[in-house]
């Protein structure tokens, strides 16, 4: 195929992706862990994140701790410390924002940046600017990131994945066709296994084969998204970098795995109700209402069952959802099986505080439920999350959820003046001096 474009960067989009983020944070604050195989997720019994040293030994995300220990006997297994990871994440985004204001927080450890037009400001090429951002993150946070630079989000993400960890790759417009000639389809964010299988049937193996076809082919085979990706992959920026903080939620879900697995009806139900409470609290914090609730239970062997139900109106009151969740629970639960996780998803979400009641609703009761929820929120914000809770969730507190060894280190030794609920917002290094 011919050159797609002669220009280098009609617009410059960068993707920054942290390498094994949670494990890297642990290694950054505890220099003794550098170079050693480290994983997080001790409290869940499953690996949440594996350092590159652990990955090299065959340990990867999602496998069980016991199996991981067999693969790698000297594995360092740590409980997740989301407080510290969030601070590192916020810091990374502020470092990036020092260079460009147009930054999209794509996830806790991924950012998209629009660098277009910054060359004159920094008197440097886009490659140099992207590299100095990368170097600043490494120098200040001591974690490594992989950076991809190109003309669209899809291409930038393709680049950042290319030389992980600590990678850097720039794909200017006039080199797109070279790089994509051998690039397998599944590397593209948006091409799942089914899409790849479909495209293979048309004789398309590499990304270049796809964008070589006329746009009508993309439209016919994959519809609107196919066309968008076709244009993105040809260097046109269809998906814009958006600096709006993610304020729109399509659904809110809360899942928690617990160890040991349980087949006790009340215990499992208490876990479910606690998730429901947390989901409703989040709903109210964002001033949203939901209509659909999905409840699922996951068994010890990772198989799971779920069920969905609708309210007759939108609601944000915990007590509106409790009877429904309890009903679904009774139908899903069977006492001869061991469960390891419960989950709640609230969907069909709206930010309009609509209060349409139907003929058989009791408006006074609905008002009261809303009052109860807001009273609970006020008490809990003063005295701690879940101080006041629904009775069915109470069992969760009685059986202390985590043994001390599974608490993150930052929660076990408080600094003078800190309380269990308020810590200094600066990462604490784990070095003995």
């Amino acid at each position, binding site marked *: 195929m011919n050159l797609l474009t002669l220009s280098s960067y009609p617009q410059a989009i960068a993707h920054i992706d942290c390498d094994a983020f949670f494990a890297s944070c642990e290694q950054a604050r505890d*220099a003794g862990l550098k170079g050693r195989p480290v994983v997080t997720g001790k409290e869940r019994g499953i690996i949440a994140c594996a350092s590159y040293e652990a990955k090299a030994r065959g340990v990867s995300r999602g496998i069980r701790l016991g199996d991981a220990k067999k693969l790698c006997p000297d594995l360092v297994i740590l409980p997740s410390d989301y407080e510290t990871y969030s601070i590192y994440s916020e810091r990374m985004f*502020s470092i990036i924002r020092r260079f460009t204001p147009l930054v999209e927080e794509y996830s806790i450890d991924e950012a998209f940046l629009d660098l277009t037009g910054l060359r004159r400001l920094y008197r440097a090429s886009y490659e140099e600017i992207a590299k100095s951002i990368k170097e600043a993150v490494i120098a200040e*946070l001591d974690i490594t990131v992989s950076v991809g630079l190109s003309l669209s989000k899809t291409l930038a993400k393709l680049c950042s994945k290319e030389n992980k960890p600590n990678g850097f790759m720039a794909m200017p417009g006039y080199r797109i066709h070279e790089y994509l000639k051998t690039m397998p389809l599944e590397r593209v964010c948006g091409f799942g296994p089914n899409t790849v299988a479909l495209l293979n049937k048309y004789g398309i193996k590499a990304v270049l084969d796809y964008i070589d076809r006329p746009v009508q082919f993309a439209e016919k085979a994959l519809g609107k998204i196919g066309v968008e990706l076709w244009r993105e992959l040809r260097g046109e920026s269809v998906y814009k970098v958006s600096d709006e*903080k993610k*304020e729109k939620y399509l659904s809110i879900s809360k899942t928690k795995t617990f160890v040991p697995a349980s087949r006790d009806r009340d215990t499992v139900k208490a876990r479910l109700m606690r998730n429901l409470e947390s989901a409703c609290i989040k709903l109210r*914090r964002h001033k949203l209402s939901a209509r659909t609730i999905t409840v699922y239970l996951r068994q010890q062997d990772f198989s799971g069952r779920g069920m969905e139900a609708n309210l007759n109106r939108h609601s944000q009151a915990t007590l509106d959802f409790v009877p429904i969740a309890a009903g679904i629970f009774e139908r899903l639960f069977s006492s001869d099986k061991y469960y390891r996780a419960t989950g709640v998803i609230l969907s069909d979400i709206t930010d309009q505080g609509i209060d349409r009641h139907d003929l058989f609703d009791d408006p006074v009761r609905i008002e009261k439920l809303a009052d109860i929820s807001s009273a609970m929120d006020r008490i809990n914000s003063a005295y701690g999350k879940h101080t006041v809770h629904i009775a069915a969730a109470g069992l969760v507190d009685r059986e202390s959820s985590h043994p001390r060894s599974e608490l993150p280190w930052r929660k076990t030794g408080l600094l003078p003046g800190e309380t269990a609920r308020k810590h200094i917002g*600066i990462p*604490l*290094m784990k070095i003995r*001096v």
Partner: protein
Amino acid sequence: MDNEPLRRYAEKIERFYMSSKRMPSYSEMLKLFGVRSKNAVFKKVRAMIDQGILEKDQKGKLVPLAVARPLRLLGLVRAGFPSPAEEELQDIMSLDEYLISNPQATFLLKVEGDSMVDAGIQPGDLVLIQKNLAPKPGDIVVARVDNEWTLKYFDKAKGNVVLRAGNKKYPEIMPRQELVIAGVVIANVRKYR
């Protein structure tokens, strides 16, 4: 309540105010906030008025009271002579700002050993260390020598690095093979009660 989004909008207004020396109009705020409806702008403005970030004058025009950097703006925008008290406020910094110059590169470390007691750093103290500083002679650094982490004065003798303890008990160290410096101590915090 979560004020984070509001603060971000206030920052956007501040940037506009600083660069164009006037408040944005509602239609300009539409663009500034990246929202589609003026109603959304009105809601955010009302919230900012409630929070004391903005104020409406008699004609209904917006006046910045405290846009993101409350203290700096105070003396600037009020009509008439600023009162001496307000002028004093302009130069106040928080203890955080006083202690920390690069917030992204600053970390806490709890001291356990006594290698720096003569420098006034005792076991139990919290030191603030900055990562991206090149150590200069006289700095106190967090260094790793022979697989042990320690707090030491950084110094140079005949072009070589020398680490000195702030405690006569410990000898000087001349790192021969590897020397890793995790950061430079920029402050020491000791809380008495």
